[in-house]
Structures are given as C-alpha cells and as structure tokens.
C-alpha cells in the first residue's frame, strides 16, 4: 500500500501550490486512475513518487515505511514508469536489447536477464518482435515495449503517465488490453494518469484532481455520477454515459446496457 498524507508541493516557495494537501491510499494490486487536466497536479504527484521532486511537505508511506532521504533510492526501485511519448523512451537497438537494458544496468545475471526479458515481452504480446528495431514499430507496439521494459524490473507499482494520449485508437486498445491482463494477475499496482474518461472503466478506484487538490474520489461509477466535479474539471463523459444521463435515469451503465434499455 502507498499512502499520501497531506502531500503539498510548490515549484517555487511562496507560489501557488501544485499539490495542496493531497491524502490518498493506493492498495497493492489495485488499478487506480488519476484524472485531471494539464496543471491539475497529477504530473507533480508522479514526479514526487519517482523521486524527481523531493522538497515536499507531508508524508509518503510505502508498505508502512515513511519515505525519507535514507530509504528513498531503495524504495524507488519498486516503482516503474511509462511516459507519454512513445518515441522518447528507447535506448536499445532491438526490442529485446531495450527491455534487457534496465536489467543489465542493475547487474542481473545473464541467464536471469534472458528469462525476465522473454517473460516481459511475452506479457505484452511482443515476443515475436524481439529482433525488431524499436523505431519501426507502431505507437501502440512502442508503448507495449515500454511497458515490458518496466515489467522486467518486477516493480510493485507501474505508473502510466498519459501513456495512451499520443497513440492511435488501435494502439490505445492494445495498451489497455495489456494493462487489464497485468491487473488480473494481481501482482502489480497500476497508477494510470489520464484525461480521457473512456479509459478508466477498468479501474478499481479513480480520483479527479483539480488545481492541486482531489475534488472527487471513488469507484468509476461514483466518478461518472459526480457531475459537479466533472464540470469543474472540464472533463467530457464517455458517449454512452452522456446518453444515459440525457435519455434515461442517468445511472451508470455499459454501452450494451444502454442499447438494451433504449
């Protein structure tokens, strides 16, 4: 479990708070979506988790241990991240090299490195592309390789920072399918950052951020019902939820359910 307690951060002292007393618990194995616009604070939260920003106020606990200067580097190894731009995260000449890179850096013995690389590529359905050049893959394939590189490090927590926003709809579906698979295995906590409400349906828990604060939190169903928070944070409801609100009782339902009830 990761707990944030009253987490506050300003980029320059005295200026407005990028994070303003954020308290949130993330349970091991859960898929948690953090939704909000640019400037809502979601990226600041990620940067703090990854140790890129350090001078915050408040407390972060990982499995009960308070994150501090002594243990930060060690605890950070439990986190892995996939970024937004699929073209900015490759180091290897082949897909396989790329996934092995982090393991090699951490001094993992060769035999285990090969085994973990294969397993990670298998997990994202990219094993048959192991000899391909990363730059020649589609956007969705690139992001799946980036996920494999992260998974190979066997993190407890996988953070996806708008990892689907720059790829085509097909690639987006591929990535979401892979995440669902990882989620079902239950070992890895997923922190999924997005501004697209159609992408959160699989998550266990969702949080809407606005101007550095959490303005709504709950199950996906509860988030879809929280009209005030959605309007305040200028988020657009998925097509079928919009219609359910406009034509039926506004209850949360899947697309198939909508068709059945109309």
């Amino acid at each position, binding site marked *: 479990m990761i707990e944030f307690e009253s987490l506050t951060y300003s980029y320059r002292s005295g200026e407005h708070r990028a994070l303003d007393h954020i308290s949130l618990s993330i349970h091991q194995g859960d898929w948690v979506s953090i939704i909000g616009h*640019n400037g809502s604070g979601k990226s600041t939260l990620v940067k703090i988790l990854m140790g890129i920003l350090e001078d915050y106020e408040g407390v972060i606990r990982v499995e009960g241990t308070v994150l501090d200067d002594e243990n930060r580097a060690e605890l950070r190894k439990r986190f892995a991240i996939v970024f937004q731009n699929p073209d900015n995260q490759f180091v290897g000449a082949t897909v396989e090299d790329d996934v092995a890179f982090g393991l090699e850096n951490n001094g993992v013995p060769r035999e285990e490195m090969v085994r973990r690389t294969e397993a990670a590529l298998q997990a994202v359905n990219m094993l048959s592309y192991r000899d391909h050049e990363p730059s020649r893959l*589609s956007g969705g394939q690139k992001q799946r390789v980036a996920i494999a590189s992260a998974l190979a490090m066997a993190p407890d927590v996988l953070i996806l920072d708008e990892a689907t926003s*720059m790829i085509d709809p097909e690639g987006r579906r591929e990535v979401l399918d892979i995440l669902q698979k990882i989620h079902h295995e239950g070992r890895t906590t997923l922190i999924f950052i997005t501004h697209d409400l159609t992408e959160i349906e699989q998550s266990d828990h969702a949080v809407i951020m606005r101007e550095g604060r959490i303005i709504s939190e709950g199950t996906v169903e509860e988030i879809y019902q929280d009209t005030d928070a959605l309007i305040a944070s200028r988020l657009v409801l998925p097509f079928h939820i919009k219609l359910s609100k406009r034509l039926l009782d506004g209850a949360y339902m899947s697309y198939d359910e909508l*068709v059945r009830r109309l």
Partner: protein
Amino acid sequence: MNITFKNLTSIYHENTPFEHLALNNITTTFEEGLYYGIVGHTGSGKSTMIQTLNGLLLPSLGEVHAGNIVLRRKSRQRNIHQVKKHVGMVFQFPEHQLFEETVLKDVMFGPKNMGMDQRTAEEKARHYLHLLNIDASLFDTSPFDLSGGQMRKVAIAGILAMEPEVLILDEPTAGLDPESHIETMELFQNIHQDMGITVILVTHDMNDVFQYTDQVKILSEGHLVKEGRTDDLLTDEVLLERYSLEPPDIVRLVHDLERKGITFEQMPKNVEAFARLYEEWRTNHAQ
C-alpha cells in the same frame, strides 16, 4: 483551387532493399471549398498523401495538379514553392515548431518567408492571432511562456497568416484534453465556413470525421480503396469493417437500435440530435 492526383505513385527508398510502395497509382481530386477526411490505418499512406499534397514530397510516378501548377518527379523548387504558398499544413504537435523570440514574430515568419512585406505580414499576424483569441498583451511575450493550448493556437495562426487556399490538418487534436479538442475542431470548422477554404483532415478520430467533413477518402496499404460522401461511407458498416475502421459512436448506436426495431429517417450527427430523434420516436411509438 482544386488539387488533383493523376496516376500518382510514391515509392520510398527506391532501388534499395528497403523499397516501399507508399501510394499506388492514385487518381483523385480535392475540390475547392470542401472539407475532406482522409482515413486509414497507420501505414496506409495518409502521411505520404498529405506530404505530396503540399509539395513536401514529389511523386515517384504521375502528377499533382494544384490549380495550374503541375508537380512531377523532378519538379523545380520554384514550382514546389508556389504550391507550398497555397497549401498550408498544420503538422502534428505544431507547437513544437515555434522558435521566434515573440509570439508576433513567430506568426509573421511564415508570411514574410512567402514574400509578404513587413507591414502586411504584421497586419496578417495580428488579425489571425485575434481570430484565435490570443490576447494582444501576449504578442510581445515569448511563445514558450504560453500554455500548451495557447502555443498550439499561435502555431496555427502562423499557418493561417499565410492565407492558404487549402489547409491540411495532420492529427490536429493529438494529445489535447477533451475540451481543447472540441475547441480546436470548432475553430477549423469556423475557418472553413467563414473563409471558404478547403480543409483536408487526417485523423484516427472517426467521430470528428463524421461530424465535420463533407467527403472521405479511405486508404489501405497505399491504395485509395473508396471515396465519396461522408454520410454514405461512414454509415456503411460492411465497408468500415472491411478496412478495420471503427464506426463513429453515433452510427454504431443507430445501427444497434435498428436491430431492435428503432429506426430514424435521418442519421443524427451529434448526441443532442440523436436524443431529439429518439424522443420523437418514443412519442410516436407510445402505446
């Protein structure tokens, strides 16, 4: 200005082991004043098609007729420049191409490069910045101090200030949040309607293609496999399925309801239009 492709073929890395046929013998016309959508999978030839439309790429075989200028395999710079003058291109993430010291200078760069004098270029720049709701107080600031959304608008103003007759949009909403997405698409719609310029939209977003365009061209593996009215092509489930294209949300719903016996006389274009048709149907079919 109409743009016509005549038996146009585009080959990458010709005569090397990497030779790749990006566009295969395409003959088609983009008529003046219409709003076109180009759809197809990644790798279908969409990018090659738009780069050929504005002279960034020359055909390997065949011709591009832009008004009365003809581009061929070995056309001269002067002709290519003429085409670029009339055909403006908004690239993906256009804000990455900002580079001048101030917003105003950045927008003036294009028109000046096209041979406009300083004063006219500044007039145009101010006019289009104003049209895109960029406040005059920001004109002398660095474009890099603006928000992402404002930066994109400044980049678009730079293209519009060249007053192209044809405007090409390459995934113009990629990476935008939902609200900016709608705002950007509405902006292009207004430009299209008010200024009468031809717009060519390349996107994966079938909802946008359905809502905004008049005509669609479907590309698959370098072939132009179908072209016609948006309302005909994007409502044809069999056709879309054949090229693995997603139907627009509204079309999918209307077809799913048809299978339940709920039928409308026309195809609604947006959620509100759908809701009204549905309520009307309910009223007429109330027991």
